[in-house]
């Protein structure tokens, strides 16, 4: 079934996931995952941000509108924020945004949040794998995706 | 189907950096289609809607003169979304152009008269079209004395320097170049354009003055012209407004009963006085 949704038809469909990674923890965690050669699916498109608290909920919605099949926002663990409380503040926004998107019918698994520290290369790989699996099982995003009208 | 919003494709042939800060560039463009190139005729003072595809459109006055055949020139200051995109263009890029739109400087009624051009900064762009038209060998005889007063904030902000040099050398015009404040390399005049205007003190007799520049400059230039005895009908300027359609429909350049894109952009001060002060 999923294969049919693949634009190329032959290989397994790979979702596109926009990942907003905080510079201090999760981005470094992703780096470590790479250096450590932990395998994870090539599904994410990383956008480095100074802090998860700097991720305006708008960015997430906008990513979905631009055709992301999923969005992952990852920051430092609570208490570890480089800016002291950025991730705590972000958490409230994300909790409400996640609820709102679900409320209007966006599949909850499309938007995910995680805390990944600079030392958690393996966790980063696991998170990406988990998020990718969940999004893959949902199939390509259809809702909220803006379609072109030109030729 | 007549689609008044369909632009013609033109190629950017040449990009000239005008100012030291590189915030003004002149684009010389040629229509890709020969037929369009033939058809596209305009008068000094008119403007075109320039498209950068994927970004949008903006009204830009045509700074070349109709006497310069085969191409159009637009001088653009980097201000908003469209002009920034245009500044990022390279020679050879393709853009869209529709027009020409709007009215033009009343060239016929200027014949036989003394012309006083007063420009400030990028405001020289629309004047330049008329200046070059008047200075063209075929036309020069139809006009009397030509005086040009042009200034900018600093030497680096002067535009069309490559052409100003030519004007300075011409003996059939009085050309006054000034900057608000000079720099180490500046040996020319210093002073605000309205002040220089009073120094030059052109006679209103049998004269028409054409002015364009920043609003604050225009304000004082007009005040001084009136002091010099010019009547509002002798003062011609060109207005800037936010525009979209260029064909008098979308409504945003509406001032009183006028649409700047259709009834303007060229107005005499006499006409402006009759219009609401909403520009």
């Amino acid at each position, binding site marked *: 079934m999923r294969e049919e949704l693949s634009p190329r038809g032959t290989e397994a469909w790979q979702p596109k996931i926009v990942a907003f990674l905080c510079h201090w923890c999760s981005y470094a965690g992703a780096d470590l995952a790479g250096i450590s050669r932990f395998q994870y699916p090539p599904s994410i498109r990383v956008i480095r941000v100074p802090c998860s608290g700097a991720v305006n909920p*708008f960015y997430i919605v906008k990513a979905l*509108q631009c055709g992301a099949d999923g969005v992952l926002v990852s920051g430092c663990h609570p208490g570890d924020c480089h800016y002291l409380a950025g991730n705590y*503040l972000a*958490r409230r926004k994300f909790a*409400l945004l996640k609820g*709102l998107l679900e409320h209007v019918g966006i*599949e909850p698994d499309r938007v995910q949040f995680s*805390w990944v520290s600079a030392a958690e290369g393996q966790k980063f790989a696991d*998170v990406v794998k988990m998020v990718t699996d969940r999004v893959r099982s949902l199939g390509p995003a259809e809702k909220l995706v803006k379609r072109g009208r030109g030729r | 189907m007549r689609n008044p919003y369909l632009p013609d494709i033109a190629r950017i042939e040449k990009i000239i950096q005008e100012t030291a800060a590189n915030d003004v560039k002149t684009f010389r463009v040629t229509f890709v289609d020969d037929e369009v190139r033939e058809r596209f005729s305009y008068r000094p003072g008119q403007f075109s809607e320039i498209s950068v595809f994927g970004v949008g459109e903006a009204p830009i006055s045509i700074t070349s003169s109709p006497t310069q055949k085969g191409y159009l020139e637009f001088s653009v200051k980097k201000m908003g979304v469209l002009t920034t995109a245009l500044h990022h263009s390279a020679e050879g890029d393709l853009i869209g152009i529709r027009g020409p739109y709007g009215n033009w400087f009343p060239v016929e009624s200027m014949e036989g008269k003394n012309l006083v051009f007063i420009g400030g900064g990028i405001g020289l762009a629309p004047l330049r079209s008329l200046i070059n038209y008047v200075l063209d060998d075929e036309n020069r005889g139809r006009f009397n004395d030509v005086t040009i007063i042009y200034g900018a904030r600093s030497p680096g902000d002067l535009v069309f320097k490559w052409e100003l040099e030519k004007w300075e050398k011409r003996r059939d015009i009085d050309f006054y170049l000034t900057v608000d404040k000079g720099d180490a390399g500046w040996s020319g005049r210093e002073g605000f354009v309205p002040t220089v205007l009073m120094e030059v003190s052109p006679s209103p007799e049998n004269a028409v003055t054409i002015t364009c520049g920043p609003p604050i400059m225009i304000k004082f230039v007009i005040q001084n012209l009136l002091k010099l005895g010019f009547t509002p009908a002798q003062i011609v300027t060109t207005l800037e407004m936010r525009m979209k359609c260029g064909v008098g429909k979308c409504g945003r350049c509406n001032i009183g009963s006028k649409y700047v894109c259709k009834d303007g952009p060229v107005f005499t001060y006499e006409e402006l006085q009759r219009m609401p002060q909403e520009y």
Partner: protein
Amino acid sequence: MSAQSPSALTKTLREFCAGLLDEGRVDVVVGFGRGTLPLRSTPVFARNPDDASRLIFDATCENNLSVFVPKLKDKRIAVVAKGCDSRWLNQYILERQTEGERLYVIGVRCQGVIDRKKLDAYLGSRRLLEGRLEEIRGQGECGEGLEGEGAGGTGGVEGAGGVKGAEGVEGARPGPGVSVSDGHIKWHLEGNDAEGRPWAASLDFEDLLSDSCKVCVKKGPVYADVVIGENGETVKGNGETAKGPEREPSFDDVKEVEGASIEERWKAFRSEVSKCIRCYACRQACPGCYCKECFVDRSAPRWIGGSDDETDTMVFHLMRAMHLAGRCVDCGACVRACPMGVDLGLLNRKLQKDGWVLFHHIAGFEREGKPLFGTFLPDDPNDFIL
């Protein structure tokens, strides 16, 4: 609308505001006046004692007047404030949009305001030429309006086309400052039908009540310099803010949607959004939308397109709601302002519910401190995070 003697509340309001202006204690009173249509009010800016005679307060006073506060240049502003209006005035102070000293809050206890779209829906092709609120005394003679189920709403109209409904009127007391707790307040409507024949009906108060008013948690002001009561009495404010809602917020409507499947919810959202024409009446009517430049108006970067693309409209509504999360006081002004009948409450109320359930937060009850998103607790919900 025929002349109706002003209610006790309105009388006191006029006298009181005339006094305030006369003494120069405020420069302007922002209140409501009688509008040009039946059951319609309009904002009034009274700057001298004579203007104050135009003021009214009743259940037609549907705007959230606090929206005018940031726009007014007057030094000292009095605002006739319902519960929800006063909550936004608090919020303005909390968000540092105005100084508390600049405001003089004239609190009025509100029984809820009319939703004109419900009235329109009820009227159909009939014309409303006159409308007023009446108190019906005596049990069992309530006329025949809609089924008065608070949570119903889909009930059909029976017998409302005739004049029968008015029969129950015994002693009509003008003005809505009356209590609805006995359920005997009626909207009295008169007009003519599509054939030009006269017509009259009487509807239960709840039938035309704005949805947000039905779940109102604070009918009176949360903070007031003075409160004018239903019978025209004035009570000086004690300079304190109400501690919290009068009753536990209820979110049955949100829960109902939450009970629907994800696809049903998506369908409902799409259907609501499809009505939107992007006139931004919701934004302009909302006291919370005071941004100098709205994200939809930004050109660089341009966040959302201006066409009728469905996803752009969706993003507009989602982000508008999100921007009001923790700030929206559920005054319903946006819903009432929308000419197209978009159910903006669908989004606003969900965020209120989550704010309440997850953070025990409800907006507009504080003048000091931090807004919901300006603060946090270490043990805020974390279980949704991987």
